[in-house]
């Protein structure tokens, strides 16, 4: 895989191109972009046939090992890689260890092993075992195994461990990768962990720089442990991490951000040069019965909500599309009232229709972001998006000040790592300092 930067603006946002995939030489993917989250190898709720009704061109698929480890036997028997095995051969696969949107049990670490939480329970995975599995799955892009499922409130000792374990495992991954015949057509991504502790995080980045001729990109973990709480950090704090890490890694590497970030944080990360985002957010909305209706027209916005909760019975007789004017199959053919009925009767088609809309509309966020970067108006677009998350009473307000959280909870959180350390003395967090 090749990553080419086509345009960079002075404040850091950039347009890039992923290309040179050996199995599909004509496929290109423009960045910034979001990958589509898969479960058990399939895009959640969508068959290959329905997916082709949503996107006519090849997409980047996000495949966490935690939800596809059980495909190993079958994929090995077929021998042509996971994309082919899951009947999505024309798409590009990016594989990672865990889904950063899932909570996993605490602890269970052994030296040089990371617990993989699958539907069949815990499996202790070494870097070697991980590389064995990657050789079976043959993803186009894969993240090195890392111990990065930690939140910003994680204790000092735990982060030190997570950084050293990740660095050691990267050595194994790089060595195995260079020797591997099966992975010649795959690109390896280094993983930055311990984001909450700048000194340790810098160590991790140093280690990645050591291999910068082997690695194709950098992924960022260690901001969230998958819990809802960990997504409630203030936006400034998270933006600052994206900036700090973005500035420290080599410019020519593709930057991948894991986690279920809302569009306000995504545009902030894009501004700091992040290129690829894991696709948890639209699925999170779909599973909650919510529809993304973010407004992308910077000239027209009058304070309407950016997310609709279609469980709400007020949509019972609302025979308008989810988002009037939207070109997706759901909006062209179905109404809010019908989706409300499907949610109310717990019918599976609700998730299918919501997935179609949410994936399409979320993809439009990145399309518009690229347009604005190209025309040097990204800052206008960014504040247009941020504004909608500021005013709307929106579910899944991750990365925002949470008024529901009491001061005591804030204080409890503070004990573990000092905030100054996290944000270098800038942007003192509300309610804590």
């Amino acid at each position, binding site marked *: 895989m090749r990553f080419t930067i086509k345009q960079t603006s002075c404040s850091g946002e950039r347009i890039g191109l992923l290309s040179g995939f050996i199995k599909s030489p004509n496929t290109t993917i423009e960045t910034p972009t979001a990958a589509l989250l898969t479960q058990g190898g399939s895009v959640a709720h969508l068959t*290959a046939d*329905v997916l082709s009704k949503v996107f006519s061109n090849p997409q980047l698929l996000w495949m966490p090992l935690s939800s596809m480890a059980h*495909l190993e036997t*079958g994929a090995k028997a077929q021998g042509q890689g996971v994309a082919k095995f899951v009947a999505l051969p024309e798409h590009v696969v990016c594989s990672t260890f865990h889904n950063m949107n899932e909570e996993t049990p605490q602890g269970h670490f052994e030296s040089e092993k990371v617990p993989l939480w699958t539907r069949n329970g815990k499996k202790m995975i070494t870097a070697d075992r991980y590389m064995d599995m990657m050789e079976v799955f043959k993803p186009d892009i894969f993240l090195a195994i890392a111990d990065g499922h930690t939140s910003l409130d994680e204790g000092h000792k735990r982060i030190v461990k997570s950084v050293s374990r990740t660095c050691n495992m990267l050595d194994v991954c790089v060595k195995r990768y260079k020797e591997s015949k099966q992975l010649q057509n795959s690109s390896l991504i280094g993983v930055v962990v311990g984001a909450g502790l700048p000194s340790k995080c810098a160590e991790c980045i140093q280690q990645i720089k050591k291999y910068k001729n082997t690695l194709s990109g950098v992924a960022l973990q260690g901001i969230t442990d998958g819990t809802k709480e960990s997504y409630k950090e203030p936006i400034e704090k998270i933006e600052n991490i994206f900036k700090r890490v973005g500035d420290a890694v080599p410019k020519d590497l593709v930057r991948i951000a894991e986690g279920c970030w809302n569009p306000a944080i995504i545009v902030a990360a894009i501004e700091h040069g992040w290129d690829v985002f894991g696709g948890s957010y639209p699925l999170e909305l779909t599973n909650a019965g919510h529809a993304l209706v973010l407004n992308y027209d910077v000239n027209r916005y009058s304070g309407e909500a950016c997310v609709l909760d279609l469980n709400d019975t007020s949509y019972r007789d609302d025979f308008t599309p989810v988002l009037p004017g939207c070109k997706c199959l759901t909006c062209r053919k179905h109404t809010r009232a*019908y989706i409300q009925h499907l949610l109310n009767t717990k*019918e*599976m*088609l609700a998730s299918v229709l919501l997935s179609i809309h949410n994936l399409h509309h979320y993809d439009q966020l990145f399309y518009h972001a690229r347009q604005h970067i190209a025309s040097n108006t990204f800052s206008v677009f960014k504040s247009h998006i941020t504004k909608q998350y500021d005013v709307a009473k929106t579910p899944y307000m991750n990365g925002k000040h949470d008024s529901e959280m009491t001061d005591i909870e804030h204080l409890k959180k503070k004990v573990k790592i000092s905030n100054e350390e996290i944000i270098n003395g800038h942007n003192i967090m509300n309610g804590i300092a």
Partner: protein
Amino acid sequence: MRSGALSFNIKKECNVTKARSGVMKLPHYEVKTPVFMPVGTQGTMKGLLPDQLEELDCEIILGNTYHLGNRPGTDILEKVGGLHKFMGWNRALLTDSGGFQMVSLLKLAEITEEGVKFKSPYDNSEIMLTPEKSIEIQNCIGADIIMQLDDVVQTTFQDYNRIKEATERTSRWLDRCISAHQRPTEQSIFPIVQGLLNKELREQSAGEHMKKDVNGFAIGGLSGGEAKDDFWPMVSLSTGILDKNRPRYLMGVGLAIDLVVCVALGVDMFDCVFPTRTARFGCALVNTGQLNLKQKQYETDLNPIDKDCTCQTCKNYTRAYLHCIVTVESVACHLISVHNIAFQV
């Protein structure tokens, strides 16, 4: 031809059996018969898009009056202008009367000459489903074909007097349904031949229905687990009496072997929840029976469910992959439903 809501043209008849093929022209679609109608209970077909159903060559699907009357409710269906518009389905629809739910919810129901008294499983309130009420809801749903309310007794029921009562009551309710029907030019009402496994009562029921001015007939009370030796003769008996020139619908029957036999007995329409229900448990239908994809033997089986099947599932997916995701991912259920419907249709 009776009313404009349905015209039935027989294209070909078998020389040996009573089988025939034809075209049933309905307000929303021309349906080729014999036809299998998948069941979309609550205004949706288990996770499949209307577009997918069209691609599967489904020409008519079934909705359940009892469920639709509760949710979304007649007020909503009236506002939007019927179920077709509500669910975005442009082809033909058929609704049952809501009466079949009596059998499945028998503990909650009390049957009198007036109608069926239910306790709503949603909010425990008492609902009286009369023949008039059933037709009122079905008029509101707006399906191309609607069913009379019938008095249903379980197939395995033995008490002659109760069966006789149900059969005769069904005929009385038919008259009430026909006179309550508000949209005869857009919707065809089918009477239901009752009488369970009793020859005389079946003959009586079919004979009485034959006198009515209706566009087609249904044969009911034969999907409750009775032996094939008992059930096929009843079908044959009914089709022997019913008018050759009007379509015949055998309710709730959908196993492949029954379809073949009953087509030979002169049945034109079938419905069954079986293909989609079984899909949820990972069972795929094939000529030799069923594949339970959950079984370990499929772990490395790189064949499609059926190599001769042209459905999207068989074109793209292996048994080995389906084995990995059945009963876990909703996608697996959609994929097997697609195949099973393709298999039945």
